[in-house]
C-alpha cells in the first residue's frame, strides 16, 4: 500500500495498555507532576474489556498508589474469609492442612475482585487526574529515531479489508510520540516481544521465559453452595503429575464463583488440550456438586507469564520501559501478578519523572526495582516453579521446605531448562488423550464458550495471526506434532482441514474467533505464528468478569 499521510500527536509519556501496570504508571506520574501530558492506548473497546484474571488481590501496591482507595467506591469489596488447598484424585479430594501451607499461599487480608472492574475504576481515576485514555486504539508499531531510540508508537489502521485495501470507513493510524514510551501490554505483548529481541533485553537471563495458559469461567450458583469470601486452590487430577497446573475457585459477590484452571505451557504431550483439561476438571464430584443448578455466565482465557526472576529481562531501553506482565513480574507461587505489576508501574513513573524533570537516565529503573519489595518477593519465589520439572510430589515437598523452612532464601537458584515451544515431544511418541464429550450442562464446546466471551472482530479485516512460513504447518507441524494449535488454542481459531486441491492437510485460521490470549505465539513449536494487533476495538469483552 502506498504511504499515507499520518497525523502526529505529541505527549510527554505514551503508555501502551490500560492494565494494572500501565494505569499505575499514568496515575503515579500525574501525582508526581500534574503538568505531564500522558496518553494511554488500549486495544480493547473499553478499559477492562481485555482484562482477565482470577483474581485474589493483594492491596499492597494500591495502598501505596491510592492510600484512601477504601473511601473511593472502589470495586474491592469481598474479603477472603476462608481458604483451602486441595489435592485431587479422580473421585476424591484431600485437604492439605493449612499449617503446612507456605505463607505465599495464604490469603488472609486479600480480596476477591474482578480485575476488569478494578482497571475500569483505575482508568476513571486516571482520567480525573487528566490522563488521556483512548480505548479502541491498538498500538500496532513502534517508532524509532535514527539512533534506534524508541520515540513512540503508531496506532493501527482502521477500516482495511482482508487484502489491506481501504474500505468506506478507512481511517489511517496516527503517530503518537512521547519523550518516554511505556510498554505494559500484559503477557507476551507483541511490541514487548519486538523490543526484547531488538535490544537483546533478555540476553543476560539465566533462564528462558516460561508461560502458562489460564482459563476463567464465572458461574452463578445456588446460594446454599455459595460461601462468599471462600478461596480454594487445587492440584492433581485431571493433570498428569508431570504437567504443571491447578485450579482456582473464588466465591465472589452475588452468588458468583470465579472458577478457573492454569496449565504451564511447558507441557510435553502435543495431544494435551488445556481447554479440555479444564472442562474435565469440572466433572470432579466436588466441583459438579458445587455447580449443580448453577449457570455459566462468562468464559475467557489468557496466557500468563511464569518465569519469575530468572527470566526477567532488562526492563529499560533507549526511550522506553517494559513493565508488568509484559516484562514478567508475576509471582508464580502466590499466583498473583496484579500487585507486582502495579508496583513495577509505580517505579516506572518515578523513573520517568526523574528522567523528564531531572535529566536522570531510564537505566535508574534497574536499581530502583532491585531495592523494591517486588524484587524481594520475586527473589523468595524464584525456586518454586522450576522445581516442578521434578514432578508434582517432589516439587511440593521441595516447595514446602524452600518456602516454609528457608523462607525462599536457599543459597542456590534453580533454572528453567527449556522455552515452552521446545517442550513438545513428537506426536508418534506421545500418548493420545481422549477427552469426555461435553454435556452442555457443566462442560461446553469451544464455540459456545467463545460466544460467551463477546468476541468480535470487524468482518473482512486482515488476518492478525501471521505465519512466518506459510507452508510450515502443512509440511511439518501437522505431520510431526499432529498440529497442536487445534488443541492449545482456547478459542478454536486453528483447525486442520483436508485440502482437495493440494491433497494435503492444511491449517485453517479463523482469526475472528481470537480472544487475544497469545498462547499460539508462545507454544507453536517452530515459533511460526506471529500474533499482531487486529483492528482496535476487536477481541473479547471481559467487562465485569
Amino acid at each position, binding site marked *: 500500500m502506498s504511504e499515507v499521510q499520518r*497525523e502526529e*500527536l505529541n505527549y510527554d509519556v505514551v503508555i501502551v495498555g490500560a492494565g494494572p501496570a500501565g494505569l499505575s504508571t499514568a496515575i503515579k506520574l500525574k501525582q508526581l507532576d500534574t503538568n505531564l501530558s500522558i496518553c494511554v492506548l488500549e486495544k480493547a473497546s473499553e478499559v477492562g*474489556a481485555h482484562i482477565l484474571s482470577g483474581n485474589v488481590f493483594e492491596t499492597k501496591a494500591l495502598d501505596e498508589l491510592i492510600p484512601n482507595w477504601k473511601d473511593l467506591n472502589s470495586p474491592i469489596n469481598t474479603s477472603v474469609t476462608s481458604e483451602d488447598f486441595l489435592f485431587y484424585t479422580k473421585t476424591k479430594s484431600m485437604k492439605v492442612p493449612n499449617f503446612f501451607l507456605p505463607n505465599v499461599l495464604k490469603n488472609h487480608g486479600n480480596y476477591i475482585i474482578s480485575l476488569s472492574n478494578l482497571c475500569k475504576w483505575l482508568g476513571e481515576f486516571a482520567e480525573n487526574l487528566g490522563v488521556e485514555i*483512548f480505548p479502541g486504539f491498538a498500538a500496532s508499531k513502534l517508532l524509532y529515531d535514527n539512533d534506534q531510540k524508541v520515540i513512540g508508537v503508531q*496506532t493501527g489502521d482502521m477500516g482495511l479489508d482482508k487484502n489491506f485495501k481501504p474500505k*468506506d*470507513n478507512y481511517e489511517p493510524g496516527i503517530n503518537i510520540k512521547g519523550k518516554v514510551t511505556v510498554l505494559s501490554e500484559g503477557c507476551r505483548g507483541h511490541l514487548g516481544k519486538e523490543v526484547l529481541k531488538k535490544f537483546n533485553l533478555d540476553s543476560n537471563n539465566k533462564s528462558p521465559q516460561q508461560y502458562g495458559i489460564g482459563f476463567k469461567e464465572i458461574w452463578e450458583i445456588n446460594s446454599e453452595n455459595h460461601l462468599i469470601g471462600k478461596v480454594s486452590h487445587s492440584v492433581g487430577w485431571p493433570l498428569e503429575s508431570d504437567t504443571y497446573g491447578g485450579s482456582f475457585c473464588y466465591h465472589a459477590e452475588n452468588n458468583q464463583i470465579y472458577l478457573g484452571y492454569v496449565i504451564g505451557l511447558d507441557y510435553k504431550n502435543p495431544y494435551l488440550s488445556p481447554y479440555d483439561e479444564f472442562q474435565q476438571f469440572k466433572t470432579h464430584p466436588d466441583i459438579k456438586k458445587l455447580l449443580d443448578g448453577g449457570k455459566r455466565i462468562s468464559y475467557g482465557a489468557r496466557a500468563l507469564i511464569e518465569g519469575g526472576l530468572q527470566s526477567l529481562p532488562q526492563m529499560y531501553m533507549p526511550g522506553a520501559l517494559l513493565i508488568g506482565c509484559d516484562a514478567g513480574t508475576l509471582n508464580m507461587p502466590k499466583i498473583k501478578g496484579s500487585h507486582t505489576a502495579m508496583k513495577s508501574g509505580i517505579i516506572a513513573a518515578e523513573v520517568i519523572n526523574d528522567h523528564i524533570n531531572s535529566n536522570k537516565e531510564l537505566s535508574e529503573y534497574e536499581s530502583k526495582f532491585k531495592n523494591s519489595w517486588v524484587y524481594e518477593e520475586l527473589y523468595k519465589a524464584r525456586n518454586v516453579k522450576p522445581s516442578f520439572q521434578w514432578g508434582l510430589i517432589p516439587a511440593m515437598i521441595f516447595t514446602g521446605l524452600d518456602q516454609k523452612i528457608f523462607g525462599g532464601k536457599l543459597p542456590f537458584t534453580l533454572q528453567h531448562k527449556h522455552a515452552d515451544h521446545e517442550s513438545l515431544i513428537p506426536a508418534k511418541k506421545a500418548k493420545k488423550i481422549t477427552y469426555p464429550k461435553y454435556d452442555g450442562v457443566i462442560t461446553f464446546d469451544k464455540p459456545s464458550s467463545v460466544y460467551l466471551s463477546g468476541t468480535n472482530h470487524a468482518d473482512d479485516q486482515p488476518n492478525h495471526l501471521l505465519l512466518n512460513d506459510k507452508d510450515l504447518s502443512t509440511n511439518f507441524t501437522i505431520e510431526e506434532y499432529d498440529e497442536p494449535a487445534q488443541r492449545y488454542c482456547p478459542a478454536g481459531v486453528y483447525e486442520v482441514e483436508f485440502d482437495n486441491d493440494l491433497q494435503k492437510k492444511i491449517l485453517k485460521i479463523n482469526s475472528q474467533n481470537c480472544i487475544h490470549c497469545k498462547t499460539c505465539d508462545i507454544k507453536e513449536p517452530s515459533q511460526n505464528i506471529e500474533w499482531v494487533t487486529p483492528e482496535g476495538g476487536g477481541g473479547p469483552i471481559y467487562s465485569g468478569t
Partner: protein
Amino acid sequence: MKVLVAVKRVVDYKVQIRVKSDNSGVETQNVKMSVNPPDENAIEEAVKLKEQGLANEIISVSIGDDKSQDVLRTSMAMGIDRSILVKSQNTLEPLAVAKTLKIIIDKEKPDLVLMGKQAIDDDSNQTGQILSALLNWPQGCFISNLKIENNKVFISREIDEGIENLETSLPAVLTCDLRLNTPRFASLPNIMKAKKKPLETIDIDTLGIDTSSKIKTLKVIEPPKRKAGIMVNDVKELVQKLKYEAKVI
C-alpha cells in the same frame, strides 16, 4: 439546514445478554454499553450532510443518566457539533421519549430529525413515528438512502416487494436503517476535540411532561433453549422424522 440526531445508549451488540437472577430485567451493571447501532447510521448521515454543505449545524440529543454522556461524546467525535443530555434516572418508553424530544425540537428548531429505526435493547420501533405525529411533520421510516435537493427529501426504504422510493418535504423525521451508510471510526484527534465540544445538560423534571411508564414489566425470562440437532442417515429418514416426529410437513 439544522439537523438533530437522537442517540440512545444501549448494551453493546456484541455482549451476550444476561437476564437478572430476580427476573426483573436485563443485567446492565458492569456491562459494556455503546451507541445504539442504527443511531450511529443517523449520526453518520448527519455528518455527511454537513460535509456536503447541506447542513450548517448538527446536534445530538440523548436521554439517560450521566453515563449517557459517553454516547454523546462519541457522536461529537464522529463529527456532531454539540450535544444535549436530558437527564433521567428512569428508562423511558417511546411516547415519553418522543414528548421529550419534541420539547427539545421546539426549542432548537431543526429542519430535519434523524434517528435509528429502533433501539436494539427494547426493539420498540415507535419513537420516530410518534414524534412525527406529535410534531405533525412527515415521516420516513427505515431509510436506506437519502438525498436532499431544494428543500425536497428523497428517500428509499426496503419493503417486502423491493425498494420503495418516496419524496417528502422538510421539516421531517427520518429513521435510519443499517444499510443507509457505514459509520466512520472516530479518529483519535477527533476524540480529543470532542472532549472540548459543548454538552448541555437539562433535567427531565424541568420539562413539565408526564414520563411515567404506561407498561408494567411482569417478568423477564430467557427464551427456551434450542434442543441439540440429530444426524439422519438418509432423505427417507429425514422425511419420516419431519412428518411424524416434528410434524412440520
